Structures are given as C-alpha cells and as structure tokens.
C-alpha cells in the first residue's frame, strides 16, 4: 500500500520547506499547472456526511472514499456533470453513486481554483523515493471565501518507507498542521464548506417531566423546519425528495393535531387542521406524478426489450404533467395564503401564551399523556384488525394500514421517551405490517394509473404502435403479482400483538 500524508503549509515557511528537504535529498520541481476543481453533493450532504467527496476536474469525476487512492471510484465524462445518478453511463461508478445518492439530485457545492506544483524527491542514486504535491488554493467560488491555503501532499513510493518517514518528519516540523482523514473534506472544512445537518426524521429529545403542551410544540417545530427547508427545492423542482419530505412533515403535523387531542384547545386544532389538510391536498397530484414516473420507469424492467419503447408516450405525458403541476406548486408556495398559514403556525408554535392555547391535558407531564396516546392508538389498531377479520375487504385492509401508520407516527413523536431497543422493535414490526397491508392496494393504484393514462392518451391518439402491447404486458404482470400477494399480514399482526403484550413493552409504554 502506498502511503500518503497531508500537511497545511505555513505561507511564510515555503522557503524553509524546500531548503529542509534539499539538505538530504535532491528536489526536482515541475512547472506549476492551474487546476479547477468542482465539488458536488446532494442537498442533504450525503457524501460529506458519510466522509466522502465527489469531485470533478477536467473530465475526471472521482468519489474519494478515503485517502487510499485504490479505494476511489472514477469515471471520465465528456459531457457536463449530470444531476441524477441514472444519467451517468452504466458503470461501477454509477452503481456506487446510486447507493449513496439514490433519487436525490447532485449539485455543485463549491469550486476551487488552485495551482499545483509537483515535486520529485530523489536519493543519492537519483531514484525517486517520494513525491510531493503542493496545492496553492487561490480562490473559492460559490461561498466567496478568499482564504489562501497551501496543502502539501507527500506520497510514498513502495519500498521506500524510511525515506517517506524522514520526509514526513522534515515537513511535519515546519508545517502548520497535519491533515487527518479525508483530504478534501478537511480542505473544504478549512474553506468553510461544512456538511448540511439535515434529516427529515424526527429526532427531538423530549423530557418525560415536561408538559405535553411544550413537548408537542417542540415536535411540531421540528416538522415546521423540515417543511420550510424543503420549499426552495420544490419551487425549483430539483428532485422528488423535497416534496416527499415536505409532505411527510405536513402529514405528521396533521396526524399530531388529530391524534394528540387535548394538548391544544379545540380552536387551535380546528384552525390548523384545515390549513394542513389544504396543504396536503394541494400537493397530492404532484407527489402522485413523482411516484408514477418512478413506477413507470420501474415497469421498464418488467418488459421485454422490444416493448420498452411502448412506455415512451406515457413517460412523456407524465413528465409534461409533472412540470405543469410543479409550476402550480411553486405558485402555491409563493402565495399569500401559504405564507399566512406558515407564518401563523410559526407564531403559534413560538408563542409563550400558554393559557390562551392549552387544552385540557396540555399541562400534564408528557410521559402520562404520551402513554395514553400510544395506548389509545393501539386499541384503534386492534379494533380495525377485528373489523378486517369480520370482513376481509380491501377497504378494511386500507383502514388497518392507516391505523398502523398513525400509531407509528405517535411512537415516532415520543421515541426519545422509550428505551431505544423497545421503540425500534415496535416501529419495525409496525412498518412490516404496514408494508404487507399495502401491497395489494399499491398494485391496484398502479393498475388504475396505467389504465387511466392509457385511455386518456388513446382518446387523444397519442400512443405509439407498441404501447397497447406494453401496457397489456404490464397489466398481466401486475395482476399476477396481486393474485399471489399472500395475506401474510395475519402472521405479522400476531407478531406485533405479541410484542406489545410483552412485559417489557407494557412496563414502559402502556
């Protein structure tokens, strides 16, 4: 393994640097060459947060996984940097990229202009025993940093470990500091580029002794932040995750308002329930279209190669509809109605006027009300399950699924009150049950969507010759899938039921 070490050089010590090494070795400098680096990441900094860097210079796009060059992932691009993983050429690079970014768009987070000087260090036999690269970072765009930094990289040559150590020692004595970990993450950090700490997941630390009113407000504030953070990405239609996270937070907010009865007074609940219902409904079509586009692209995998082209009119139609719907969404998010809802919701959540808004159980300690809410929700799930056993109908299955989702949300709200292992087991079990209950319904939605669009395009004479065959093929595959959808939710329900009846669960939750 070839060793590398990175140092930050003190600017006034550049001469010392050369003379110190020259005492023992011969230095051979190359011409200084200009180099322009562009750094990319997703909105939620998936690369930086996982200790990786996506960098482009010239035609080279590299994912630096760590400092060892052999573990890096590389591709050469003749085109501009694509925004989505699927737009990269089919390669190991794309497979790795897909694992990190998924459906998220990648965009430029910083670019650096630097001058690079490469130096060969030779021993008495004139053999190169180490290489040194000095990177003079001159300018940082996007964030406007003007700090100049000089980074020294010492690269060892196999079999010349003693020489490497000796050069590291020499430079270590005159350098400002040693860079540990990922080189570029450190450099970007020095220039002020830090990973965004964003997660749509609920991660609110609550205290059991806190009042329910205060604690629920903290939960709702977190969700309001998620809603606001994602507005810009929706307006610019950057990727589907912005709307997804926005809607999850809107849905959770609605769920909190309807399920956590008595924490706030009725006036507040009624007022904002209507507002968030409006936001949910206004974003339904756009989200459906996002999901349909993902689904129809997945249908391509089901089709024989020659039938894939039949889906083109459907995809084109969906993309066109999506663009139109996102334009509407941008207008909504810029509208005075939307701004008023968010502004007033924010005012309420930040208000200190407890007396005015508190409900009948709002001042009770959180652990008591939280347990009561969880218990009530479990009872509701049980009732819905019994109803499904009485009448095995898709409608009852859907109701049970919604009940599970509501219970999961409540448990997620109060997650920090419970031992992590118990909470994790319960949520995992609920999620599996929810997924199993949803398979049938999800396939039904896909079938309906496909047939609706097919009929619509047929009436407008916008199908190609292959489309009827492609749609017919997919419908058959979906129907087969729907038929074999085993009703294994009974087993999953029993598992969930057994879990919540365990002593350890009852002791902490019910």
């Amino acid at each position, binding site marked *: 393994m*070839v060793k590398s070490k990175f140092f930050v050089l003190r600017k006034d010590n550049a001469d010392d640097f050369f003379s110190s090494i020259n005492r023992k070795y011969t230095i051979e400098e190359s011409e200084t060459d200009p180099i322009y680096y562009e750094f990319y990441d997703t909105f939620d900094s998936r690369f930086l947060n996982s200790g990786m860097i996506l960098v482009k210079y010239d035609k080279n796009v590299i994912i630096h996984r760590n400092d060892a060059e052999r573990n890096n992932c590389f591709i050469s691009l003749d085109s501009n940097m694509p925004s989505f993983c699927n737009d990269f050429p089919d390669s190991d690079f794309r497979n790795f990229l897909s694992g990190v970014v998924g459906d998220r768009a990648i965009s430029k987070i910083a670019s650096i202009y630097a001058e690079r000087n490469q130096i*060969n260090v030779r021993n008495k*036999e*004139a*053999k*190169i025993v180490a290489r040194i690269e000095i990177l003079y970072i001159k300018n940082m765009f996007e964030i406007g940093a003007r700090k100049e930094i000089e980074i020294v990289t010492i690269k060892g*040559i*196999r*079999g*010349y470990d003693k020489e490497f150590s000796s050069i590291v020692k020499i430079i270590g004595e005159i350098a400002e500091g040693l860079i540990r970990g990922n080189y570029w993450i450190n450099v970007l950090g020095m220039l002020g580029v830090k990973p965004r700490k964003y997660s749509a997941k609920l991660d609110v630390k609550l205290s059991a002794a806190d009042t329910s009113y205060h604690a629920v407000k903290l939960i709702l504030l977190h969700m309001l932040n998620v809603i606001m953070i994602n507005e810009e990405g929706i307006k610019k239609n950057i990727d589907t995750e912005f709307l997804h996270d926005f809607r999850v937070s809107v849905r959770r907010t609605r769920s909190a308002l309807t399920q956590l009865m008595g924490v706030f007074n009725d006036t507040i609940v009624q007022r904002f329930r209507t507002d968030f219902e409006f936001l949910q409904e206004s974003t339904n079509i756009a989200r459906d279209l996002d999901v349909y586009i993902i689904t129809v692209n997945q249908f391509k995998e089901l089709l024989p190669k020659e039938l894939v082209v039949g889906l083109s009119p459907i995809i084109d139609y969906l993309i066109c509809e999506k663009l139109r719907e996102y334009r509407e969404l941008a207008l909504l998010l810029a509208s005075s109605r939307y701004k008023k809802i968010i502004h007033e919701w924010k005012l309420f959540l930040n208000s200190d006027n407890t007396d005015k808004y508190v409900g009948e159980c709002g001042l009770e300690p959180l652990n008591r009300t939280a347990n009561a809410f969880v218990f009530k929700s479990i009872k509701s799930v049980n009732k819905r399950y019994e109803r499904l056993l009485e009448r095995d109908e898709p409608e009852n299955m859907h109701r049970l699924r919604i009940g599970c989702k509501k219970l999961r949300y409540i448990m997620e709200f109060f997650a920090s009150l419970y031992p992590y292992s118990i909470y994790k087991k319960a949520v995992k079990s609920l999620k599996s049950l929810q997924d199993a209950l949803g398979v049938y319904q999800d396939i039904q939605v896909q079938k309906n969507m496909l047939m609706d669009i097919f009929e619509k395009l047929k009436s407008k004479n916008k199908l190609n010759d292959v489309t009827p065959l492609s749609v017919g093929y997919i419908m058959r595959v979906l129907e087969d899938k729907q038929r074999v959808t085993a009703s294994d939710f009974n087993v999953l329900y029993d598992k969930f039921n057994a879990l919540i009846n365990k002593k350890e669960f009852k002791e902490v939750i019910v």
Partner: protein
Amino acid sequence: MKIVALYSIKGGVGKTAASVNLSYLAAKCGFMSLLWDLDPQGASSYYFRIKPKLKGNIKKLITKSSTIEKNIKGTDFNMLDLLPADFALRKVDLLLNEIKKSKNVLKKTLSNSKDEYDFLFIDCPPGFTLLTENLLGVADFVLVPLIPTILSLRTYEMLSNYIRDEKLNKLKLFSFFSIVDRRKKMHKEIMADFMADRKNILHNYIPYSSAVEKMGYHKTPVELYGMNSVAAVAYRNLWEELKDLLY
C-alpha cells in the same frame, strides 16, 4: 496475472533492455506491471536506479510470496514496480537443488502471491539451469531475443527441443530478433530464412541502436530520452504485437 519471461540461453542478446522497455510500455498502457530482475548482474535494477539488494535470504524469496511482496520497490513510473536483483541470486540453483520437487517451487510461490499485477515480466539470467526449468514451468509466455547469428539460432533450437521433450504444451514460446544490423547481409538472410520457416516469431525486431546502449547512461527506458529514436519506435511496435498475442 500474465507471466512473461524474457529468456535466452545465450547472454548479451538484449533480454534486459527488452524487459525494461516492455514492462515500462505495459505500465504506460495502464497495466499494473512488475518486473522481476532475476539476473544476479542486476542490470534491470540498475536501469531503474534501484539498489540490487534484497531483504531476507534468497531461499525465502523463492519459496515465500510474503518475502517477494516485502522486497518489491516502486519505480519512478506509475503502475510499474520492480523486484530487484541481488548478487546472492547466483546461488539460486544450489538452493533449488536442496528442495524437493524443485521444478515447481516458483510456480507454487507465485500462485500464492496477491493478484496485484496484470503482468509480471521476468528478466531471466542466461544459461540453462534448475532455475530455468522453474521459469519455464511458471511462465505463460517465454519471449526469446535472438541475434541473427548461427550460434544464437542454435541455442534457440536447444530450447525448443527441451520444451517439446518435456511436453510443456501450455507454454507459449515466441522469439524476436534483437540487435539487428540491417547493413549486414548475413543478418538479413538469417532473419528471412528463419521467419519463413517459423510461426512463433514476432514480426517486429529491435535494431542495433546507440539509443539502447545509452540506457546505461540515462538509467531509464529508451522512451524517456529518445522517444523518436529507431529503438524506441521498435520497442513500441514490439509491445503492440506482443499485447495482441497476450490478449
């Protein structure tokens, strides 16, 4: 990993120059390459400015892959490493004599080494010894430089007969003409006759060139100081032909 042994019973035929230049061109082409300087004279090591000195004893070197890995040194060129020579390599045959099933020692050692390289070029010492038998057993491809002289062809016949008698059927034996003086009528005639008779001779040859002799002065492959020289062009052509044969 493909193992290419540059070998000749006869000395002074251009094995080392070919080893150095071909391994360099392979690395330049993007193949991770290792050159093993097995000749105790250490000329390949010298051309890469690496001391012909090994850590540990020679017995360990030929029997333990970990000792081979410890002794590998990076050259001045990307993707090209060198396992240097050592004067003690002159005793390899004595050591092999002491080991049971000595014909397969190197095969066993190299099969245990990490699959780090695309190519292993071996600069073999001249002569025909136990080490030679080991090398013929381990190489995928034996490349024999031939000076177009009667004696040189005679030693090549000896090698061909040995391979036939030992039934080393999997071994690919190829030769190429080296140190060719196109002004000499005899060189031209010998080359023409030999090429007419044989299939396993490369069409490209290395001419006699002062550029090759200067390798000792520059201590680098010819490409680095005489890119447009006849010798550099000849090595490039030879490498292209060899690459096609290897893949």
